[in-house]
């Protein structure tokens, strides 16, 4: 290992070129760029899913995605005014207090073009790539209410038209939406239906002339429900399927408020993001022309899935932006406040909190821009698992960081005179909306399991049958493993893509990936398709995968930074190494638990406790002061 590194270093010294250790990286950069020009087919390379097989698809994530110089200049031009606007013209305290975004603020946002960030330029939007969208998201997130209003408008509200709408629909609606003349909202949730499509009650019936649908039903918790002029509504329609049977299927519609019959309730009084408008929207015989069906009749489920899956990655940037701001605010306090003649920043436990915040921000940022970069590659790559991981990691990280920041501030963080309690309230919603983190963990783990299962089924069946050849092969592999203790997936070494200063972390990552592959295999062997019901197992699988993806992101980013000599790259290396060793231990623990049976890893006990409590719907222990005699 160290020899290897020496050789690499000596080589680099000889060539008088500090970048040669990353020859491999450069090579892959060139190949990807050359491919970019003519690749048009859908990519089947998948990074996160391959981790389930114990493989690292390094071409996907190394080197860290970059944007070219012009794009960078362009984004900087956007960032400046937006930042200025948010610093000077947005009064978050007032928005929070009055539970309303003032119209002059909204107008300012419209003028900056923030209502159509991802709408292509030909429809009057900014036409930003995912990367640039994430970058702007960092600033917008400084006010939770505005961020949610904008996200509900364009990340979900008009996304349906953008990704599944036809040309006429785009021409008709997108320009006004992009300009902010119209606000969009996404109407999926119903009183009886969150993530269960079967319980959607809103119904669209075809009128007798066959040219219109009549939509009836009510939708709840609709962000922008009170402001919106254009709704993406999901409703049940009767569809004749291929065997000639009538079936109810979900269809997506573009509904204008103008169509009539659209009413909304009073805005909900919320814990956080109070300035965003959330309310119930009721459709009463709303007449929608048949041209306003998004996609095809009965194809609404796919549309909804795609919309939901595509919007999540941006949360990483948003959370990172918020934490960066928090670090600035709290470190000032920690540097000035003195206790026992020492400033707070000299106390170990306070230092630890800042390190946690920096680490989290760094990891989130890395994951978000890695994912955004992957999504920006041509060929519509499917990065929904990656995006879900970014969402889960960053929402939970943000919650922890805000809470740590509040802890540093003590009582100051708890009062309404300072913005910190608002940050805390605002960021609680991140764990809930756009698919709760629990549901997304299921998605992450099951999608990977499905992928790995397809590939491994044959092998596992052979093993179960007791095929001697396969078993011997397995045994041989096990023996080889035990003899050679290191796992080499090719991240380091001659063809390596990771900078030598991160080699240790890369090795840990490789080891984790390898054992994750074997763990997944044994899980599939043990549970087969019934793993769907093993939620506690799936949760751990998802956690390991999230850690692995986060490790990938930081390794890739720090390698790039050090190679091109970004400012403070040594700090990045430090962060990356710290995070990786921490994640390595967590992963090992989780995987050790995964290899055990339910009684050993406490799963059974947890379930039993919950069962007994839920049976009585109360905490059932006697009071400690009770006596029987």
């Amino acid at each position: 290992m160290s020899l290897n590194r020496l050789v690499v270093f000596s080589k680099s010294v000889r060539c008088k070129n500090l970048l040669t250790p990353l020859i491999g990286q450069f090579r892959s950069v060139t190949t990807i760029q050359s491919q970019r020009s003519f690749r048009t087919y859908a990519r089947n390379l998948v990074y996160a899913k391959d981790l389930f097989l114990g493989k690292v698809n390094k071409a996907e994530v190394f080197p860290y995605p970059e944007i070219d110089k012009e794009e960078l200049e362009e984004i900087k031009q956007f960032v400046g005014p937006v930042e200025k606007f948010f610093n000077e013209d947005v009064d978050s305290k007032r928005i929070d207090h009055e539970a309303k975004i003032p119209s002059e603020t909204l107008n300012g946002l419209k003028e900056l073009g923030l209502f159509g960030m991802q709408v292509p330029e030909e429809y009057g939007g900014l036409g930003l790539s995912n990367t640039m969208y994430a970058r702007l998201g960092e600033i917008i997130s400084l006010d939770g209410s505005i961020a949610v209003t904008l996200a509900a408008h364009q990340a979900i509200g008009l996304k349906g038209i953008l990704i599944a709408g036809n040309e006429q629909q785009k021409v008709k609606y997108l320009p006004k939406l992009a300009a902010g003349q119209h606000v969009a909202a996404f109407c999926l949730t119903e009183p009886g239906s969150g993530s269960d499509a079967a319980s959607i009650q809103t119904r669209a019936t075809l009128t007798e002339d066959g040219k219109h649908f009549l939509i009836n039903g009510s939708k709840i918790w609709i962000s922008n429900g009170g402001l919106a002029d254009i709704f993406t509504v999901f409703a049940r329609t009767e569809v004749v399927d291929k065997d000639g049977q009538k079936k109810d299927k979900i269809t997506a519609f573009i509904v204008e408020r103008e169509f009539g019959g659209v009413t909304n309730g009073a805005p909900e009084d919320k814990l956080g993001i109070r300035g965003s408008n959330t309310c119930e929207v009721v459709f009463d015989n709303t007449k929608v022309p048949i041209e306003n069906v998004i996609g095809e009749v009965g194809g609404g489920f796919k549309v909804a899935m795609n919309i939901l899956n595509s919007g999540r990655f941006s949360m990483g940037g948003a959370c990172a932006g918020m934490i960066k701001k928090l670090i600035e605010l709290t470190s000032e306090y920690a540097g000035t406040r003195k206790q026992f003649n020492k400033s707070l920043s000299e106390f170990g436990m306070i230092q630890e909190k800042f390190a946690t915040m920096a680490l989290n921000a760094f990891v989130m940022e890395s994951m978000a821009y890695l994912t955004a970069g992957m999504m920006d590659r041509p060929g519509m790559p499917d990065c929904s698992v990656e995006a879900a991981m970014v969402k889960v990691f960053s929402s939970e990280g943000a919650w922890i960081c805000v809470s740590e920041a509040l802890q540093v501030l003590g009582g100051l963080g708890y009062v309404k005179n300072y913005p910190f309690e608002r940050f805390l309230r605002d960021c609680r919603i991140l764990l809930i909306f756009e698919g709760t983190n629990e549901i997304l963990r299921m998605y992450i783990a099951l999608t990977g399991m499905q992928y790995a299962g397809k590939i491994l089924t044959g092998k596992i069946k052979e093993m179960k049958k007791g095929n001697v050849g396969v078993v011997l092969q397995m045994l041989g592999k096990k023996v080889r493993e035990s003899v050679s203790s290191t796992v080499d997936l090719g991240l380091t070494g001659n063809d390596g893509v990771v900078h030598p200063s991160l080699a240790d972390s890369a090795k840990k990552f490789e080891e984790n990936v390898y054992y994750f592959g074997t763990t997944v295999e044994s899980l599939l062997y043990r549970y087969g398709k019934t793993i769907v019901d093993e939620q506690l197992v799936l949760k751990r699988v998802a956690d390991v995968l999230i850690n692995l993806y986060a490790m990938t992101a930081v390794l890739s980013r720090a390698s790039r930074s050090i190679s091109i000599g970004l400012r403070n790259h040594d700090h990045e290396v430090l962060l990356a190494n710290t995070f990786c060793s921490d994640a390595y231990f967590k992963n090992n623990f989780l995987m050790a638990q995964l290899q055990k049976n339910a009684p050993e890893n406490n799963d059974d006990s947890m379930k039993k406790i919950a069962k007994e409590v839920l049976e009585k719907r109360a905490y059932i222990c006697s009071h400690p002061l009770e006596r029987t005699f």
Partner: protein
Amino acid sequence: MNCARRLARITIRGFAPYATVTARESAKCLNPYGSGVQTLRAFHAGFGHLKDQSVSRGDGHPRHEGSLVTHDSLFEQAAVEARTKAMFNRVLEVFVRKDIRRRGHVEFIYAALRKMPEFGVERDITVYNKLLDVFPKEVFVPRNFIQRMFNHYPRQQECAVQLLEQMENYGILPNVETKVLLVQIFGEKSHPMRKYQRLMYWFPKFKHTNPYPVPQDLPQDPLDLARLSLTRVAADPDACVTVYQMPSTDVSETIVADVSLPYVVGIQSPEQRSLLAKHNASRPVFVEGPFPLWLRKTCVYYYVLRADPVPPEEKVQEPVDPERSFFYPLELDLDLERDLGDDDSFDVDEVEEGPIFAMCMASRGDQATLAKWIAGLQQTNPVLGRAPTLFRLESVSREIQRAGESEPGAEPGLEEEPPHRQAMKQ
């Protein structure tokens, strides 16, 4: 070893009376005001057979019988005036004051124990303590090792054990006063003291063994009682009780019984409602009953609305709609089953029963009354209008036995098992 044997003895002692009483009690529930005294006698005898040999009782019996008359008469005289706690206490006081030597106190205590249920003080710890107080103090405390080794004053000790035993049977936990009295009367290591210690060891442990406790005092109003019973049977926190018909009596009429309306109270959970909605209307639903439910000493009867189990050919396994969950797949498309090593399910022979759609209680078990229940249910369950309803009721209609009317005495603290009864009648 010795411990184990002793434990076993305790268990036998403890439960044998229950068994006798339970059988007796259940037989009696058809015939209230049965022979209470007899019950207790049988219970004495049962106890006596199992009694520790070391506690001699040989000469006690005939005298016991003989003196019984006088002491019983003491109570009977009092009973003529009033059967109250105060009167019982007065009898005790009279006895204590009558003779400084407390002659015949063992017989008196036996008699008092027997009379306690009659005076309604069988669950009163203070009365038991007062009764213990009848024993002269310090006389029976062994003074040397020989006395301690042998059974010192066996009749008195046996009597005290008997008293504690009766407390045990009524589920009365001794208190500190009991302990102090026992120490004063028999000393630290006597048989009654041992009995006391065993009681104190086991009673608290068993106090909360019943996960479905029945309140000590059942509601007096039959409607409330029905509510309580139905929620108990349904065992579903979501189930809601509906009163389909309030009981009412037309007071102005002379023939009250004919105009009085029976109450009809039913319970149905949302889950049962959806089950009923899925019921195939061409198959009948059955109203069956009455089924007994025991609440302490009260037996109430309920009726169920049920159907036969769905025949296998009608059962359709609905495939999971792939377009059901917006966020994650509900099923994996894999050809791998769970490994045997991770299959934690037991191999249990399961007999499938038909679904039960609702339960009800009514003060009259005739078809006309229950039809009102079905009519009420029909408002929320329209399928009942289409499906044929068959009444399969047991011909013998029984009155609901109320707590107050039930047999006093005998078995406390435990849930009686109702005698097994074939409830279904075609």
